[in-house]
């Protein structure tokens, strides 16, 4: 058997009837290397650092460029990438991945210190394929594997071609789900994609952005008229912040695509780094429709979501996705939400509004304040300028709270809150009649109890990690 060079047909399938994806070299035991141009990609990734160093030094030294500048240039654009590429080559030579006889995914690596990693597929939490910017230029992708219980330690395989990465991901998922056969990537049925133009316009029209932009224009005008320069700087700050926010969110959610797959809802987005996230239906805790004033004309709405942390991730929520849909029409939003809350029809809910006297407590939004429930979910409505509807299934209710401030008490009102896991969505029914709120709260606890007993949706896959952290 050839130890390197062309792929071998015998070592590939481990006698189990499927191919280990990858176009890297294969050795006689069927282990694979990642793609051979990986060192090139790493070397190319080092170049922006060089550019940055040159710029910094250039600004620092000013005119004295000459010989020192040329030397710096050589270091930044030649020496640094070559060194990085050379190290990456050594890493590449020592990096192998394969499935072993027990069915675990194994990765051996290390130039100086050898490391053997074994991924027990029964404890698999997630497999993601992502394309960092430089890698995308080479059509390469990286595979990230996360395991339950290993806090924060992810296995990263750099780089494979995009197709190979996806195929490997599909194979790992299929083997984890207990199917031992050759499989293509779980078929995705695209539900919707957000057009870049819509995304850009929607971000500019968000209330906070619009307000800050208007404010900076106002400050600019005032400072122009009065001839002061302090106002100019302030305007730069108040204007710069929303522009920065818009740009960063645009980059993050560029080309947001939602597709349905057997693993759950799959979200793809990103300009600099395309990310793919899978949202298993059982993990969604609560969702919220947000409709800012300036989006009303287009009929646009944003869907935010609380997703429960999976086993090994920390509570900081740094990898938790908070958006199910950055912008879309109401129909699109309902279609997306229907995938995570299947038996829910938000439009058909019977709203129980807050009494008229709540106008004295909250005269802007009082007419919108209401609560509604059916057999599956409870929903709360609020907001006049920015309309919000939050929805939580009974089975996902954590605790239920009633609050009553002094102003509410004088009007015999109270607010009811259904607590959910940390996230952007809060389910609060504000300023309802006090005894009604009391009644709804107690009823909700009962509904939650029955729903929990009947809940099977957390067992959506064949294997559930043993330490199911509640």
């Amino acid at each position, binding site marked *: 058997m050839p130890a390197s060079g062309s792929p071998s047909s015998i070592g590939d399938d481990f006698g189990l009837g499927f191919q280990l994806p990858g176009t890297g070299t294969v050795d006689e035991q069927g282990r694979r290397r990642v793609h051979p141009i990986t060192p090139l990609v790493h070397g190319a990734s080092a170049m922006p650092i060089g550019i940055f160093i040159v710029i910094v030094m250039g600004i620092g030294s000013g005119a004295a460029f000459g010989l020192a500048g040329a030397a710096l240039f050589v270091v930044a654009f030649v020496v640094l990438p070559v060194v990085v590429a050379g190290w990456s080559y050594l890493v590449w030579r020592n990096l192998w991945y394969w499935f072993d006889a027990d069915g675990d995914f194994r990765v051996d690596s290390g130039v100086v210190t050898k490391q053997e990693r074994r991924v027990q597929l029964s404890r698999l939490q997630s497999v993601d394929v992502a394309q960092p910017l430089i890698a995308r230029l080479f059509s390469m992708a990286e595979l990230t594997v996360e395991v339950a219980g290993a806090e924060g330690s992810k296995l990263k395989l750099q780089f494979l071609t995009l197709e190979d990465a996806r195929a490997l991901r599909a194979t790992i998922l299929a083997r984890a789900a207990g199917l031992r056969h050759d499989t293509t990537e779980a078929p995705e049925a695209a539900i919707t994609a957000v057009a870049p133009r819509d995304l850009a316009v929607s971000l500019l029209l968000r209330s906070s952005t619009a307000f800050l932009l208007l404010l900076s224009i106002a400050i600019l005008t005032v400072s122009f008229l009065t001839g002061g320069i302090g106002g100019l700087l302030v305007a730069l700050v108040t204007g710069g912040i929303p522009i920065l926010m818009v740009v960063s969110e645009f980059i993050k959610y560029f080309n947001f695509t939602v597709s349905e797959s057997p693993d759950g809802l799959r979200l793809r987005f990103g300009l600099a780094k395309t990310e793919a996230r899978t949202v298993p239906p059982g993990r969604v805790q609560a969702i919220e429709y947000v409709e800012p004033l300036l989006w009303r004309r287009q009929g646009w709405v944003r869907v935010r979501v609380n997703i429960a942390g999976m086993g090994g991730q920390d509570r900081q929520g740094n990898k938790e996705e908070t958006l199910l849909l950055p912008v879309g029409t109401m129909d699109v939003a309902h279609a997306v939400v229907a995938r995570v809350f299947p038996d829910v029809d938000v439009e058909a809910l019977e709203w129980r509004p807050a009494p008229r006297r709540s106008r004295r407590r909250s005269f802007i939004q009082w007419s919108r304040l209401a609560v509604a429930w059916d057999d599956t979910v409870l929903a709360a409505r609020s907001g006049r300028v920015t309309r919000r509807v939050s929805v939580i299934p009974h089975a996902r209710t954590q*605790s239920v*709270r*009633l609050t*009553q*401030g*002094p102003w509410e008490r004088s009007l015999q009102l109270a607010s009811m809150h259904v607590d959910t896991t940390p996230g952007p969505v*809060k389910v609060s029914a504000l300023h309802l009649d006090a005894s009604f709120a009391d009644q709804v709260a107690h009823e909700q606890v009962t509904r939650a109890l029955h729903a929990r007993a009947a809940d099977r949706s*957390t067992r959506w896959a064949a294997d559930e990690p043993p330490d*199911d952290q*509640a």
Partner: protein
Amino acid sequence: MTDKVNTAFTSEDPWTPVSPKLVTARRITLALAYVLVVAGIVILVVADRVPTWVPVAVAVAAVVVFEWLWWLIGRRVRSFGYSERGDDLLVTSGIMFRRLVIVPYGRMQLVDVKAGPIDRWFGITTVQLHTAAATTDASIPGLLPDVAADLRDRLARRGEQRSAGL
């Protein structure tokens, strides 16, 4: 136990009040905090940088606030109550801002028993419940240690029996 809990929210089951020692403990804490205020006033007087009426006004205001807080602590402590029901625990508190939390046993993740130095001196503890939600606000202060330990054990047992997935 007699129903001495002053709460806006109803419950068919009786509320269990917390120990009156909490009142004393909280009042002592208030007094200790006021030591700083008094020190501040003394410094103002000694430094002699501001007209005399300033420290006098501050002193008067401080005394008024002190009296009000002293009285308020008594009322607040009497508003704390809890009720163990079949499937959940109710905790109520607050005079100005009233609160009622209903925590199902199956949702309890963690039950803490805590006591700061002043609480320990008076022999009371606080039982705190945690669910997966950060906003669950179920804290019962002013419980005698054996009461707190019994409560914690009962809650933990019930929590385990009914524990649900996320």
